[in-house]
């Protein structure tokens, strides 16, 4: 089996979909020379009409993609930095994602927004390190955060084939990961389906994106004291609530580890829904960035504000102890 890197998985998914459907094309900055490696080899293969190099005009380009989608194409828009999704936030949530409803079902907006580097990058600091996926969940824009190379392939493919806008977050913490995958394993992953990464019966740990690996490490570490079920939602909106309910029916205990800001973040939504609707035998806990975390550019500051395995361990033991 070949080792597949996360970025290569994105590259293969894009290549496969462009091959399969001539309506698929990509817009982005520095995509001709594949600065992010997502488009490696694709400019020469598909040409400037399918790999479209754009100026630094993210708002215009985002609505350009929406218009192209309403006229029958399936654009993929690549953004280099998380905050660029904030810059085009209105265009995605107030325009692209609303046109189907506003048109009474006439409009389809099959655009995929790809953020191939979400989250912290050592030293890049305050304006380059956010994980804004919770914002899109608030506006009910379909949002995926693949943790593994195979999921990066499978969810990116499903996003491109989906008839609605979908935002794909590739966590920087996962980019370095390489995975053994048989070609046959590279298949579409349906949106809205979670995955149990490790079975357990004492506590359910919901881990988002690259934090799945930290959760697995902690589960291993604590194996002789606590049986941890590691729950990877994969899609944040629509969230796989049934799978979570099933897991909690078994464990009755919940910890969520989420590398985004605490207040009104995805972890808050998971705690809120679980406590409202599901079986809990102890108060659940969150391990997140602090409220309004701004990662200073010095690595010491960066790291201090991101969820750690120590914090996750404490939260798990605390939840198991209580109740």
């Amino acid at each position, binding site marked *: 089996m070949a080792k597949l890197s996360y970025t290569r998985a994105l590259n293969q998914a894009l290549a496969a979909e462009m091959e399969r459907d001539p309506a698929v*094309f990509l817009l982005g900055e520095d995509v001709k020379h594949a600065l992010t490696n997502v488009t490696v080899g694709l400019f020469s293969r598909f040409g400037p*009409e399918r790999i479209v190099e*754009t*100026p630094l*005009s993210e*708002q*215009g*380009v*985002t*609505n*350009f*993609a*929406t*218009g*192209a*989608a*309403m*006229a*029958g*194409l399936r*654009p993929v828009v690549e953004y280099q930095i998380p905050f660029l999704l904030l810059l085009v936030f*209105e*265009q995605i949530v*107030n*325009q692209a994602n609303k*046109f*189907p*409803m*506003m*048109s*009474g*079902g*006439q*409009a*389809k*907006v*099959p655009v995929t927004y790809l953020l191939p580097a979400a989250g912290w990058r050592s030293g890049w600091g305050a304006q380059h390190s956010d994980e804004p996926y919770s914002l899109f969940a608030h506006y*009910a824009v*379909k949002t995926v955060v693949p943790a593994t190379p195979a999921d990066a392939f499978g969810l990116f493919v499903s996003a491109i084939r*989906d*008839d*609605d806008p979908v935002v794909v977050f590739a966590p920087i913490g996962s980019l370095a990961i390489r995975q053994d995958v048989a070609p046959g394993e590279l298949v579409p992953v349906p949106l809205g389906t979670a995955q149990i990464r490790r079975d357990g019966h004492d506590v359910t740990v919901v881990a988002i994106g690259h934090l799945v690996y930290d959760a697995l490490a902690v589960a291993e570490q604590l194996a002789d004291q606590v049986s941890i079920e590691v729950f990877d939602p994969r899609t944040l909106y*629509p969230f796989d609530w049934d799978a979570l309910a099933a897991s909690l029916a078994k464990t009755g205990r919940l910890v969520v580890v989420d590398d985004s800001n605490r207040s009104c973040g995805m972890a808050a939504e998971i705690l809120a829904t679980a*406590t*409202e*609707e*599901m*079986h*809990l035998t102890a108060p659940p806990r969150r391990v997140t960035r602090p409220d309004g975390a701004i990662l200073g550019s010095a690595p010491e500051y960066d790291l201090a504000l991101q969820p750690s395995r120590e914090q996750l361990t404490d939260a798990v033991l605390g939840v198991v102890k209580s109740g």
Partner: protein
Amino acid sequence: MTLTARPDVTDGPDGTQGPATAVPAITGPRPADFYRIMRLIRRFEERAMDLVKSGEIGSGIHACIGQEAVAAGTGAALRPDDILLANHRGHGQLLAKGCDPGRLLAEMAGRTSGVARGRGGSFHPSDFSAGVLASTGSVGHGAPLAAGAAWALARQGSDRIAVSVFGDGAINQGALLESFNLAALWLVPVIFICENNLYATTLPVGANVAGSVTGRAEAFGIPAESVDGMDPEPVYAAVARGVARARAGQGPTFLEFRTYRFEGHHTFELTTRPRYRDPEEVDSWKARDPLALQAGRVSQDERAQLDAEAEAIVAAAVQFALAGPKPDPAHASDYLYASGLRTRPGTAARAAERAV
């Protein structure tokens, strides 16, 4: 591309099958054609304002009375299958593009028989059957939508083009200026039409625009003209030049049409009555009423007949609109996703009953 309504979902009487009030698409740039559509638009807007006063149109409207010549000249130069992205003052442009008056009015009145099943309303109607993809609420943001649609059509081998219509207030919106650069760089078959009616709500163009309106586009190497917008003939001629350029693959065109709105920015001015325009200025423009100008170009008899036709169409439109079914709240969340995904309600689906 998908210009037809999706049949797989419905919320009662399907609002998008077939015309309600027959109105033949504009046949050409003959004086009578211009007069016919201009008269229709004028009467449509007047009756719509009545329906605002009577509470049938809850949103109020942005009437385009006074600007009919721009819509008439534009619509006459376009093909039915060309794309239009209008703005909040778009009723006239939509009618001239071939939008059914009854279904448009039903949309404004929030009926499921409206062009967008009552989901878009007066501000944001879309009607794919007439090539109207959207009327977005973000002023100026229709320009990049139109550029993207036009580019997509060209890439699919079609000779259809797209038009974006916006006001003078829109030309300082960054996204619109960004789209000028994209359209110019990529020779996109799009026409940018600025209806310069001298005001953005209460803001006079002089306090809004440093430099000139046409200069905005010229900066990107886009051919730009400033044209009298109170006469459909020069409007038609200018748009036709832009259409020819676009279909020939020569890229975008920018057109400024100097016009004026005879009514307030929005019908709320009927009650708030703000004073930001000099009454003499208003009168001087009303003295140049494009409808009166065009009336002088058709014979008495033809005029009488076209007036009667317009009355009949608008009367039928009002009747159709008010007869349309009001929405069933149970369907409030239909069409949220093209994929048919349903969302969670605002209260817990299955509240836990456990003791804590």
